[in-house]
């Protein structure tokens, strides 16, 4: 009886141990899952550091731009980041109104919207070359030295909203 009782106790203990073990196991799994998440963030934390305050750089939004002739301060051997976007007039008009909405949000008026409207007119009734457009291509250049001030910009090119970053 005693032996049997001992057995029962042993069984109970073993079962309890098993339950505890399982619980611990689940906890371990949970912890693992948690660790996956947190290891993600600890990697993140490890890899991340603050260089400057948020908005520490004067990021530009649809900045006024000048023609090649007007860019007097630029030297021939200055590095620039150049982008060209091929667009259809229709697409430009559409995205032009989109960029107008954006600019409205920003409280600014978009030069690109004007381009878009005029370009659609040109599409219907061509009247020769148009500033900034080379056929159906719009080309924009961002001097690297000037980008050193801003680091980042929101702009449009050929009707495409672009993030200028490099």
């Amino acid at each position, binding site marked *: 009886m005693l032996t049997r009782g001992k057995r029962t106790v042993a069984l109970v203990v073993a079962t309890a141990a098993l339950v505890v073990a399982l619980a611990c196991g689940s906890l371990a799994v949970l912890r693992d899952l948690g660790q996956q998440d947190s290891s993600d963030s600890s990697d*993140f934390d490890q890899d991340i550091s603050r260089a400057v305050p948020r908005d520490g750089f004067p990021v530009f939004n649809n900045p006024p*731009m000048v*023609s090649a002739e007007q860019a007097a301060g630029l030297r021939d051997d200055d590095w620039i980041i150049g*982008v060209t976007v091929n667009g259809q007039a229709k697409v430009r008009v559409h995205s032009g109104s989109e960029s107008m909405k954006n600019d409205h949000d920003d409280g600014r008026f978009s030069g690109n919207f004007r381009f878009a409207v005029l370009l659609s007119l040109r599409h219907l009734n061509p009247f020769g070359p148009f500033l900034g*457009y080379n056929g159906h291509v719009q080309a*924009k250049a961002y001097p690297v*030295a000037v980008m050193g001030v801003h680091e980042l910009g929101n702009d449009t090119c050929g009707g495409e909203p*672009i993030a200028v970053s490099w």
Partner: protein
Amino acid sequence: MYSRRLDGRTLTFGHEGLLYKDSFVLYDKQTGSLWVHTTGEAIRGPLKGKQLTFLPSRVTTWAKWRSEYPQTLVLNGRRAGGFMGAFNLNRDRSRYGLSVGHGKQVKLYPFTWLPRDGVVNDDVNGLKVVVVVDGATGMGVAFERGDLVFRSKDGQIIDQQGRVWDRLRGTSGERKLTPVPATAWLIDRWMAFFRPGEGVRGAGVPPVGRSPRPGPGW
């Protein structure tokens, strides 16, 4: 250079001021997600895991760009050094490479490994590409090449059928090669994101630091 269109909306970016693996972090004003400026990937926030569409752009000299696109518009403004403003490829050529591909599927071509006046027929993750170095600036561009194989000739590139293509625009008459995203990276910064030999990430990237040099047809 990225498109700000993503899944039917237009994002506007601000500068978060953080560095992630030595690359600047941006935030979008629509969702507050954090984006790495060099990879175009969201690493935090509601858009985490999303990837911005890379737009082909070119780093070149003003003289070169202006002669190619006389009607270009240009951002005017104050100049400043530091970070990006300190870029000087002529001085730091060995520190930079051309990263070809998009998102996580990229391949790095250290500039000092590229033939100065040369052409590299290669593939990036199964996509056949031709990497072409601009003789004047030493920067590179890349195009999908299909089954074409290019070599350099008289300042342009020529395919195996003898067609001559504009070296930097990838055009031959009405034909136009599709540009492949290619952008200059600091090699050590690139290595922080992409490890050679880790799946498709950076597959085939030569260990940085080993001395040159790809032969013809590399």
